[in-house]
């Protein structure tokens, strides 16, 4: 139940915000120094960071939850206990991977 809603919310977030950021980033890159400076400025302030961290989480959540759905498409993993464990694993792993990626990106761990 929660796993399904999170799959949709993270998917919608990636579709709308994620693709908008990707497109803006590419357009800024193609435009040269000034548009790109504007993008990096927006991306590195606190609001931009929250959006990027949120997108990273949405990516991992949707990615792992998507793998779960692909496994379930084969007819496997429907037993209640297995299914719940798989869903919990997805939630935990998405948060851990997001934290690990940003710790690495911000130079907290090398």
């Amino acid at each position: 139940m929660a796993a399904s809603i999170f799959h949709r919310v993270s998917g919608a977030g990636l579709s709308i915000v994620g693709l908008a950021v990707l497109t803006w980033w590419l357009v800024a890159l193609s435009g040269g120094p000034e548009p790109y400076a504007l993008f990096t400025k927006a991306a590195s302030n606190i609001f931009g960071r929250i959006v990027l961290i949120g997108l990273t989480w949405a990516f991992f959540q949707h990615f792992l939850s998507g793998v779960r759905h692909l496994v379930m498409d084969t007819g496997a993993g429907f037993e209640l206990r297995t299914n719940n464990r798989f869903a919990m694993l997805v939630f935990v792993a998405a948060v851990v991977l997001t934290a690990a990626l940003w710790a690495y990106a911000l130079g907290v761990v090398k």
Partner: protein
Amino acid sequence: MSVGESSTPLGRVRGLGSAREGGEHWLTERVTSIALLLLGIWLIASLLLLPALDLRTLGEWLQAPSGAVPMALLILVGFKHALDGMKVVVDDYVHDEGNRFALNLVLLFFAAGGGALALFALARIAFGGAA
């Protein structure tokens, strides 16, 4: 006669309101999702492994075929998968037929427009325009 025990399983499915389409949409969503597993890992790994994220480094990265081609695929497959996924959400939650049609049209236009813009920007970088 109602659609009941005398009909075949396929006939029952048809009688129970299949729109006679959707199978391809469902399958495309899965196929693009598998492609995006690979392209998503590629994007994140690339951004983490690049020595810097400045204009010059990123420009060189996207001018090489090893950067430009996966990025073009990511844009195409990403926008397609987003469109397919958002359509499912719209179809599930918007019950009025007119609103549903209008919203799906808006989604299609945004996906096509956004995808074209992203591809154009990539081409401009890859073929060495302003960058």
